[in-house]
């Protein structure tokens, strides 16, 4: 039973990261209708900035906030200068620009920082070997608890932003019908830029926490996390915030259980296979995800 709780808890903790990244994808998708393939690389780049600021002597929490601010500005800039002009042309053009960003940020990070020495990225939370609490026979590391709490708090804030504020109302209006929103006086451009910025800022936070768990920042930091996050967004339905969170946590738990209970067959290496199977299965059976809305197209 203690094994079960251990896997459950570890799964929730990694699921919290997937949820955060999936939220980024959903926030962008709801506003603009496309998937930001560069999301993982954007958060990786911000994580490098956080690491560098910390390296220069800034306290980590302050560095993380700076990283999020830079992420916000960067995300908004990318939307206004690169994405919006080509979005008029085709979805494929947006995809190509996103892939360009992916490759560019990835190689830029590699060129500027190379591979930093391992074990240099501190964690936002206490992360000494003795920093854990035993509950139900499972060790609950403070770091994992911290990630889970941060994930839930950010989700709560996002919900409040979307449902309680004027800006959230504008965002929902743009998501449901951009043209009508513009007609009633919503500044759609600003809303879109803000949703990209918001997604990039959350991504920066998620990246910082990911790097904190392993202690190293590398250009490939977010590859697998991005796949998990897109699996979560697919499972939850690309236009549902709540769906993304629930699906992210579910995927985290399922892959940890699968890896834990079938160490020979799945183990650490094939965890990603679980995410792939989830993507494939969901898309084959229910392409809109569990909480997504069916889209009807007019000929």
């Amino acid at each position, binding site marked *: 039973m203690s094994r079960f709780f251990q896997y459950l808890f570890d799964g929730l903790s990694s699921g919290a990261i997937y949820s955060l990244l999936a939220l980024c994808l959903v926030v962008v998708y709801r506003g603009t209708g*496309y*998937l930001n*393939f560069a999301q993982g690389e954007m958060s990786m780049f911000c994580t490098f900035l956080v690491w560098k600021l910390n390296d220069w002597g800034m306290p980590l929490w302050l560095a993380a906030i700076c990283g999020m601010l830079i992420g916000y500005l960067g995300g908004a800039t990318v939307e206004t200068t*690169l994405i919006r*002009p*080509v979005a008029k*042309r085709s*979805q*494929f*053009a947006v*995809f*190509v*620009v996103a*892939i*360009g*960003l*992916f*490759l*560019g940020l*990835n*190689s*830029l990070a*590699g*060129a*500027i920082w*190379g591979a930093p020495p391992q074990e240099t990225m501190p964690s936002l939370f206490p992360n000494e070997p003795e920093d854990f609490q035993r509950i139900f026979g499972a060790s609950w590391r403070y770091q994992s608890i911290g990630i889970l709490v941060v994930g839930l708090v950010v989700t709560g804030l996002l919900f409040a932003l979307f449902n309680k504020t004027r800006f959230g109302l504008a965002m929902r209006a743009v998501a449901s019908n951009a043209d009508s929103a513009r007609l009633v006086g919503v500044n759609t451009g600003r809303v879109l830029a803000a949703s990209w910025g918001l997604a990039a800022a959350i991504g920066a936070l998620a990246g910082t926490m990911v790097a904190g768990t392993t202690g190293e920042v590398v250009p490939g930091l977010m*590859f*697998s996390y991005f*796949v998990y996050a*897109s*699996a979560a967004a*697919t499972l939850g339905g690309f236009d549902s915030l709540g769906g993304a969170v629930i699906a992210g946590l579910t995927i985290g738990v399922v892959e940890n259980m699968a890896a834990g209970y079938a160490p*020979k*067959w799945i*183990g650490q*290496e*094939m965890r*990603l*296979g679980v*995410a*792939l199977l989830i*993507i*494939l299965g969901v*898309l*084959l059976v229910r*392409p809109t995800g569990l909480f997504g809305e069916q889209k009807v*197209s007019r*000929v």
Partner: protein
Amino acid sequence: MALVTIKRNSPQHIAIRVLGVLLVAIAVLWVPTKMTTGNIDSMTNALALVIAASALNLVIGYTGLISIGHSAFFGIGSYATGVLVSKYGWGHGWSMIFGALLAFIFGFIVALPALRIKGIYLALVTLAVAVLFPTMMKWPKLEWLTNGARGISGIRYEELPSLPFLGELKGRDDRTVFFYWYAIMLVIITVLVCRGIVKSRMGRALIAIRDNEIGAEVMGVNLATTKTLVFGVSAALTSLAGSLSVARTGVVTADGANLTLIGSIVFLVVMVVGGAATITGPIIGALVYVWVDNYTRTASASGDGLIGWLFDWSAVSPASIILSVALIVLMFVAPDGVFGLVRRLARRVAVIK
């Protein structure tokens, strides 16, 4: 307004086409006879990219199905050749055919979700495939077949066949020349297959799907068969490029060049830079890509010229940075790629009617 108007199939038009074919033939012959061994090797590398990007072009350029999983098909070809030649003593040719069949089946399966989903969702499935493939090859359960993370080495042509015109081939230089011709043969096959598909009824069906899927279905295009078939063919062609690369280098590892997600992106860059939905585009794109790659590598290493000066601070080659910037800039100024740009400029001078 164009300066000159040329009638289709008039003597002038035929003369231009013959001249074009002659120029290409001269270029193809010039490479192995006049270039240094290192450059011939780079050209062979470019030809492998031509194959992969042309195959990707069938799926993305013509059909509008976005895939970033083609590195996995490249990997299937690589591993099929690697395993069959080194462990089971197959010939290179047979291993290549087997790899292509395997990739066809695999591509067919990957395309199944495409029947129900569109655009970005298919890209997600292919993304997962691309990320999963290297992991799968390093899976301990498959170690008996793939040698895990160490990969397979020593997959060489034991003795080069003696070819007509070229005579007996010996040594490192002749080996390079041999693989160049080997690659040319595969490129010709690929271009003929792509051209055959695009100019046929099937090609028109593909373009109809890209431009208006519902419209295509109404007009009697069988979406399921067409989509899965073109994905399978594209996967099989990509696996040829994988087999070729392994035959050339003699090694295959799960994280090797073009087998990871970055490989898929490279194919995409080649296709977009050259010009999507054209037969010539991927060829130009691959040449540009390999040239930029080689040029920036040497320039940044020696610190020469503008590139060397600009990227003096960088320890690694700035090739991918330059290419990604080029990709984004191209989307703004010339969404049809280099070939599209050239064609547009050429039409100012002469129009073929």
